[in-house]
């Protein structure tokens, strides 16, 4: 008995402590040496900076777009608050990957496998990240999404296999947190939660409690969406502000939304397998076959979701979905009953294959001018024209640009209202700095409000100058009496 307990403690320490810490530290070193992917993402750090400063722009940025996930920002916030920047980035990276390895442990553990299988699965995930050399794949947003996706997928599979209440709770909670990981995972999160009641339909005892599973599994997700809508209403004055970009980005939003959920059809065969297994079982819960079928189908759904986004020209963040798909497949593999050496071989082969597939998708980052240089040039341009100048840098790209900026001339702006700016800064010369609408920048609110602003400006906005990929516009307004007097004096 004592020996069993000792062995149990040892396994717990190995899979829950030693291995995750070692692997997360190794990934941190790897990321630091290669491409600086340890950084939390410039936007995340920028939003945190504004949040800590208590600005309205920070709050608007936190909830203002379905493409910029609030969860990584909220995750990074305590690090940014407590630690100086490089340390904050490293710590956040380390903790995010600890979470992933803990999620792997939870996902494999439920199948009742030994500690070494968990260690192998954790090492395989770390190996995949290192071998694939995808900078985006290592960022904390991806790590958090992958960890939550693993928890959700494994919980749904375990629910189908064992019908434990805790799996419904885990799937529901993971689904809710996934909703905060950005639009690309909305579909898979919704599908994971919707699967819960349907997976229980194969057995009479659990089928009659359909509404209980639906409520328990779905409520966290519905509530999360409700809170997001409420905060948009409170902070940005429009409950659907964070979703408005969809109307601009895709010509037919209804078709697009239907397409996002269409990969759910891939789950149908797994559901049928689950029901068939249930029909044969004596007790509710159909065992590991159904679990494996669900995990594999779920990985296919994730991959299909990435394709759908790419089809509609929104494949900016498909790396995250692909990482999630590969991780889920790896978990499915690790949960299979097979000898340890065969598992090690198959996981190794899987890592190699996935890396070669993934490696083909690596795109070199576009060369852009340094943010500090652009800020300096804009400031110099404005200072040369007026001592009362103020430049509003638009959107999340602006947060990125202003990350290291310490001056007061340039300010972030998340929701452009020229009239409000003129009223708030009466007597000053106002400018607006607009990023080029390419890639993810297309989703910025300024472009669904003023689609042609970058090329032609907008009402009361007059083109002034170009700085790298940014266009500067001057806000046209009648001079105040004070300005006129000054001008007359100068003349």
């Amino acid at each position, binding site marked *: 008995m004592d020996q069993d307990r000792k062995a149990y403690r040892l396994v717990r320490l190995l899979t829950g402590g030693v291995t995750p810490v070692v692997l997360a530290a190794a990934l941190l070193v790897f990321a630091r040496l290669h491409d600086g992917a340890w950084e939390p993402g410039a936007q995340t750090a920028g939003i945190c900076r504004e*949040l*800590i*400063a*208590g600005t309205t722009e*920070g709050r608007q940025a936190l909830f203002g777009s379905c493409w910029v996930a609030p969860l990584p920002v*909220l995750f990074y*916030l*305590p690090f940014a*608050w407590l630690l100086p920047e490089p340390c904050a980035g490293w710590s956040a990276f380390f903790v995010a990957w600890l979470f992933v390895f803990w999620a792997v442990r939870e996902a494999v553990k439920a199948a009742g496998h030994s500690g070494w299988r968990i260690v192998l699965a954790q090492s395989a995930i770390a190996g995949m990240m290192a071998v694939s050399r995808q900078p985006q794949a290592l960022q904390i947003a991806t790590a958090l999404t992958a960890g939550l996706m693993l928890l959700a997928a494994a919980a749904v599979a375990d629910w189908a296999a064992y019908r*434990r*209440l*805790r799996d*419904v*709770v885990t799937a529901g909670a993971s689904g809710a947190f996934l909703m905060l990981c950005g639009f690309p995972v909305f579909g898979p999160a919704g599908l994971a939660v919707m699967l819960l009641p349907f997976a229980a339909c194969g057995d009479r005892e659990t089928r009659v*409690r359909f*509404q*209980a599973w639906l*409520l*328990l599994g779905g*409520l*966290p997700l519905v*509530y999360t969406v409700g*809170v997001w809508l409420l905060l948009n209403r*409170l902070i940005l004055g429009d409950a659907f502000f964070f979703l408005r970009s969809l109307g601009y980005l895709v010509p037919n939003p209804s078709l697009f939304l239907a397409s996002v959920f269409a990969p759910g059809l891939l789950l149908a065969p797994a559901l049928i397998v689950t029901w068939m297994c249930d029909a044969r079982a004596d007790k509710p819960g159909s065992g590991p076959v159904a679990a494996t079928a669900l995990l594999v189908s779920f990985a296919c759904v994730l991959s299909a979701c990435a394709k759908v986004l790419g089809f509609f020209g929104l494949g900016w963040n498909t790396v995250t979905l692909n990482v999630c798909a590969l991780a889920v497949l790896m978990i499915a593999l690790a949960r299979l009953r097979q000898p340890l050496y065969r598992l090690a071989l198959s996981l190794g082969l899987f890592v190699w294959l996935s890396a070669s597939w993934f490696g083909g998708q690596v795109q070199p980052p576009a060369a852009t001018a340094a943010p500090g240089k652009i800020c300096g040039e804009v400031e110099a341009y404005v200072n040369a024209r007026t001592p009362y100048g103020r430049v509003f840098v638009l959107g999340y790209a602006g947060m990125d640009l202003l990350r290291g900026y310490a001056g007061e001339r340039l300010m972030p702006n998340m929701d452009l209202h020229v009239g409000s700016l003129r009223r708030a800064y009466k007597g000053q010369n106002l400018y607006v700095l607009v990023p080029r609408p390419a890639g993810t920048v297309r989703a910025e609110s300024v472009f669904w409000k003023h689609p042609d602003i970058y090329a032609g400006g907008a009402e009361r906005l007059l083109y002034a100058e170009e700085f790298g990929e940014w266009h500067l516009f001057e806000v046209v307004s009648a001079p105040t009496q004070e300005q006129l007097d000054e001008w007359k004096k100068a003349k």
Partner: protein
Amino acid sequence: MSDVTEQQGASQRTAASADPLELSRRRPDWSASQPLTRTQKIVMVSLAAALAAAFVVWPLKTAQGLIAVCTLFYVVMTLYKFVVIRASLSPSAILKFSASEIAAQEPRAWPLFSLLVPMYKEPETVKQMVASLAAMDYPADKKDVQILLEADDSVTLAAARALTMPPGFRVTEIPESFPRTKPKACNIGLHLATGEYLVIYDAEDLPEKDQLKKAVMAFEASPANVACVQSRLNYYNPRQNVLTRWFTAEYSAWFDLQLPGLAALGAVIPLGGTSNHFKTRILQELMGWDAYNVTEDCDLGVRLGRAGYTTRMLETTTWEEACSVFQFWIKQRTRWQKGYIQTWFVHMRQPLKLVKELGFVNFLHYQLLIGGVTFSVLVNPVFWAMALVWFVFRPEGAAQMFPGPVFAAGAVCLFLGNFVFIYINLLGCCKRKNDSLMWWALLTPVYWMMMSYSGWRAVIQFFRDPFVWEKTQHGLVKKG
């Protein structure tokens, strides 16, 4: 001592020879007979004065500090609930015995089991109570049932005497004395108890038939330091009205999730009012219940912890009657919350000693469970009002009181914390298979407001009438 000798000894004891106030006499530091010590009064007045002075000198900074402290408290409470609920979902959180395991015990000699049933002015429930205890699956000659009735309760005494009591049942008259509380009656019952184990039931309780056997098996399967086994409580009238629905949801979450979670974590457990099974000897060692504490069960749970004993949860249910009338519910809840306040102050008389006796982790459990729950009930209305003002009026100055990180943490508590608490009730209903109550559990915030009202009522009563026992009215289910 053998059963026979023990019984002979007990037969020589009488209610009059019992000392129901033994704890307050011998260990006044463990009793609520003195609600606040002199030191506690000085500390409280000093704190209030310091706070008032700080508000005068640095109003904004003081408000910011208080809000930050409360926000941190909410964050900790939310995380704590997460941990407890997660622990409750582990298979080891609760002791389970199947019907076949119980059957496999036979034939065997079951130990003598004392059952105490304190009653006061409840003549209508006597018959049902006797019937339900007589029907329990336990050898009749091994049951020692005492119906504890106050000497001045002529109606219930008459109803009890009119009944032909089954073997092993007896009526114990409690002599009139101050304080007139349930624990005082129980102490006399304990003095006269002859069983190796002892359990308390309320008059309207309907315990599961095999509960006593399960309790004995639980004690036998547990280490020697397990002094108490707590059964789960739930209600047999959940659908009577909206109040009983909420009450049932709350009880399901408390007894089916939170207490098992605490037991799994090895925490101090605030015992439920009934269906807690004890080793009689240990209970006598601890001098029974504190007659001055209006939640003597909660206090006893802490004292067990301080004495180095633990409590386990048992998978068996005692069905009770949920209070269905608002004013009675308020009175009952006021008593519970006042009792929690009493208990917190009693054990915080010597905080360092408490840390030493409970251990640091259990001390934290104690603070969050006994102090934290009460504190949150009292502070909630303030934060709800602030949130409402912010949503509706968006005052300019409000942002000043919430610096960046405090705002973020506060938002997380408001939106995540409150949801977690609602979700726990939902989960409790689901675990109880009370699916239709889950929709009602979504309206739990209204129930919280009622709790806050009774919480403040409890604070006022704690200072004005610390020993007043507002008795719960039973027997309303038939009228409903």
